[in-house]
């Protein structure tokens, strides 16, 4: 049995020319938040007993999870940084108990910021003994200076409706130098293999 996560990254300059593209590689990067979120949905209880957690949300606050009204939602829209694929500048190693990017890049056109496009999804279906879907996000650097992108993650929603909170499901290290006016595209493939 395998449920696997793959990542592919490409960087382009302001004219759209390809500067760097990685081959799709397998990640080893689901972190604890994801498994807590799956467990909460399996339980399907609004008040689990004993409590389910705590697990830190992306802001570092301890949360006891419950069934969620919009579980796993990571369809961040344009400019949204609570959910969806995110990028950052830290190359600290991945650890299973991490709860957020180590140095997340904010939304905007200020120094060190990038513009977050809306996350997209594509269900590619079954091919042989594999079933996959793809989710992708583009980040544009209009900060006026190059940005060294060194990490990426998937943020998703938990603990709703009482209070929406967000957890990091996976984190990976990448190495993309994005020039001013350029863009980096991060593509995750979630694949199960029978």
């Amino acid at each position: 049995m395998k449920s696997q996560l793959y990542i592919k990254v490409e960087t382009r300059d302001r004219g759209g020319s390809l500067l760097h593209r990685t081959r799709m590689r397998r990640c080893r990067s689901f972190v604890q938040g994801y498994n807590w979120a799956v467990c909460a949905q399996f339980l399907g209880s609004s008040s689990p007993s004993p409590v389910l957690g705590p697990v830190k949300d992306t802001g570092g606050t301890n949360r006891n999870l419950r069934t969620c009204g919009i579980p796993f939602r990571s369809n961040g829209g344009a400019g949204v940084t609570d959910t969806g694929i995110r990028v950052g500048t830290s190359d600290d190693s991945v650890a299973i108990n991490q709860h957020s990017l180590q140095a997340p890049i904010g939304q905007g056109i200020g120094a060190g910021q990038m513009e977050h496009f809306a996350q997209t999804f594509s269900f590619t279906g079954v091919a042989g003994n594999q079933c996959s879907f793809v989710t992708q996000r583009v980040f544009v650097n209009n900060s006026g200076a190059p940005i060294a992108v060194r990490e990426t993650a998937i943020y998703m929603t938990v603990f709703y409706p009482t209070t929406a909170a967000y957890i990091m499901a996976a984190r990976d290290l990448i190495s993309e130098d994005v020039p001013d006016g350029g863009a980096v595209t991060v593509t995750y493939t979630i694949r199960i293999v029978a």
Partner: protein
Amino acid sequence: MNLYYEVIVKDRYGKLLAHLKQPARSWLKQWNQLIYGGMSGVAQSVLDTNGINRTQSVTYDLLKFSASPVMPAWAWLRVPEPTWSPSTTTAFRAR
């Protein structure tokens, strides 16, 4: 992400006949459809365990596993189905 399962079989007196713990094979398409629906917010048409296409909920009870008379019975994964007896248990262990 790996999935494991554990099976314990006892006779009427409580004597342990088999105790298996091993990796499961495997998640099926429906699992990925549910995760896709949850992440994207776009519902998928998912076959339930009766072979009926269901438009999944992408809100509450997306993956609810705890017993409930109203829970949808999704087919998530497949595990080996040996015929349980002491002899077949031995053979199963030996694989």
